[in-house]
């Protein structure tokens, strides 16, 4: 007889194996999807996952890995801290947008002045914007007990409208011949988030992401606050008795994830994107949720997961131009990854037992 039993403790082996299994299963299911779309499945997988790193034009794509991975990692690190504590910030996309708007606005306010303190000021403004946007759900949750999932998500749609309004109004390029969108920050030396080493894709956002990873790692494993986060997520009542201040923790987790998302938005707008425009946001805030889960809410795992997701974006672009694979296929692919991860996670918490159980 086969029985299903909850493991007394989470299986350490399975918790490492699950993401790998999920990725392999997604390859298989993705292959089927590509086949159904009339593409060669093996060729598609190679184009998406092998060519950007080892293929003929990899010198061009490798830097993209850092450019696309940095915002994902930056956002996911913040989200993971909240998710660990059972605080669900789903609106990172909104915080990313507001961070970008504030960062760009701070820079454009001084155009065309050139000074070394402009870029640091923009970083501060971007972080502040993201933090502020995340403080709305945090405050409402602490003060009124409002569900942070719904509020943070509603604020994404508000932020998208704000973005449209900014690129058509306040931040519109006065010399842009009436086209929507702000001045291009890449052409404004003091505000440009340029590559630190040319040709590597290494910009200040990548540095920030690395710092965030180390910071989060130390916080979660060595600091009392990290302990509070973990206890709150696993046993909220125990956390209460251990003296964890739930309100303060909510402010910290939401604020930190908003701050990091705002930073990601600011580094994106001043670097790779270059300007505030209506279609500035491309869903990093949502993909980062997948990254956080795929990385097992662990800083190191998130780095690996973030790079893998960045790879799907880059490979997806290549597959779009070379194999005429539709752009949405990659979105489906990313969604499937999260499905398989959640499904395989079953084995970290439960196990099958064979044979009859003895009477106790």
């Amino acid at each position: 007889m086969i029985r299903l039993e909850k493991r007394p403790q989470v299986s350490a082996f399975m918790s490492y194996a699950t993401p790998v299994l999920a990725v392999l299963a997604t390859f298989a299911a993705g292959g089927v999807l590509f086949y159904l779309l009339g593409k060669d499945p093996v060729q598609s997988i190679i184009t998406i996952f092998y060519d950007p790193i080892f293929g003929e034009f990899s010198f061009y794509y490798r830097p993209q890995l850092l450019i696309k991975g940095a915002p994902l990692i930056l956002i996911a690190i913040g989200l993971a801290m909240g998710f660990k504590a059972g605080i669900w910030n789903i609106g990172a996309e909104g915080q990313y947008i507001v961070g970008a708007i504030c960062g760009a606005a701070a820079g454009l306010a001084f155009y065309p002045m050139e000074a070394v303190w402009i870029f640091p000021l923009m970083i501060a403004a971007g972080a502040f914007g993201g933090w502020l946007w995340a403080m709305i759900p945090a405050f409402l949750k602490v003060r009124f007990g409002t569900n942070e999932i719904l509020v943070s998500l509603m604020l994404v749609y508000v932020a998208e409208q704000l973005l449209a309004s900014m690129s058509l109004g306040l931040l519109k390029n006065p010399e842009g011949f009436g086209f929507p969108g702000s001045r291009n920050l890449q052409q404004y030396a003091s505000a440009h988030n340029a590559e630190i080493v040319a040709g590597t894709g290494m910009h200040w956002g990548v540095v920030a992401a690395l710092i965030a990873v180390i910071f989060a790692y130390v916080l979660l494993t060595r600091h009392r606050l990290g302990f509070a986060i973990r206890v709150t997520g696993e046993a909220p009542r125990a956390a209460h008795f251990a003296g964890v201040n739930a309100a303060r923790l909510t402010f910290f987790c939401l604020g930190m994830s908003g701050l990091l998302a705002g930073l990601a938005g600011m580094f994106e707008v001043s670097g790779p994107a270059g300007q505030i425009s209506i279609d500035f946001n491309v869903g990093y805030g949502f993909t980062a949720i997948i990254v956080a889960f795929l990385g097992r809410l662990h800083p190191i795992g998130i780095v690996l997961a973030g790079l893998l997701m960045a790879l799907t974006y880059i490979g997806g672009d290549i597959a779009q131009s070379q194999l005429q694979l539709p752009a949405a296929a990659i979105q489906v692919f990313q969604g499937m990854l999260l499905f398989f991860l959640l499904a395989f996670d079953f084995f970290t918490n439960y196990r099958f037992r064979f044979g009859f159980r003895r009477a106790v």
Partner: protein
Amino acid sequence: MDLSAINPVLLIAAIISAATPVLLAAIGETVVEKSGVLNLGVEGMMIIGAVTGFIVAVNTGDPLIGFAMAAVGGAGLSLLFAFLTQVALANQVASGLALTLFGLGLSALMGQSYVGIKPPRMPDMPFGDLPNMPVIGPIVFGHDAIVYVGLLLVALTWAVLKFTRAGLILRAVGENHDAAHALGYKVKRIRTMAIMFGGACAGLGGAHISLIRVPQWTEGMTAGVGWIALALVVFASWKPWRVLLGAYLFGGISQLQLNLQGAGVAIPVEYLAMSPYIVTIVVLVILSADKSRAPASLGRTFHASG
């Protein structure tokens, strides 16, 4: 600005129609949450319903078949969520998010060759001359069949939950799944059926957007209506008639802001377009003090350890 251009009778009629997608999705989610499951995938199921209904309606030329298949599509996607949460015992919040992300991607993939096409027109209801009556005509009789289906579902849900044995069992499962299990009820089977009902309702609601409200297919066209439906359920304290009230409130705001845009009010379009989301937040805040009505087992995973 010319506010006199807004005809109050037509406005009320338009509000009833505008409220239908969110009403359908929210009434489905009410049943799901009453069974103790929190499905955050409403947005994903709606958009899958929107695209399935659109594709089928365009290919068959019959919007009613489109709506039927939209319900099937929504319910089909919800089975994925049911598998994750009821069989694989995964976290409901994460699974719901996965459903939404996957649904948005899949719908974009399915609908890419249908952008810019006009769907077939919905046949009129067989009311004869009634819609031409002054005032009452447009408000009561001037709608498509799905509007009435939505109202009927609210009444049915209320009656089933309140007066029938099936409703009692569903509520028991949602309040205390261990007790319900001990009484011999199949918790997982009941919850799976509730989840599928929620998926079918969300699918119908999505198709109402793509086939009647807009009517055409664009990527991500549900634009957060699924999330607003989730907020509505909280707003309504899990009561069907209050879901209806909430849906009209939301439909009213989204329709009014469209009319104000049309009338050329001196507020920028973007700020008017924000208003439904901001109002949703405000309403959530006002009502979040009362948590007493939430099903006691909401969001908790059930695993029979015996």
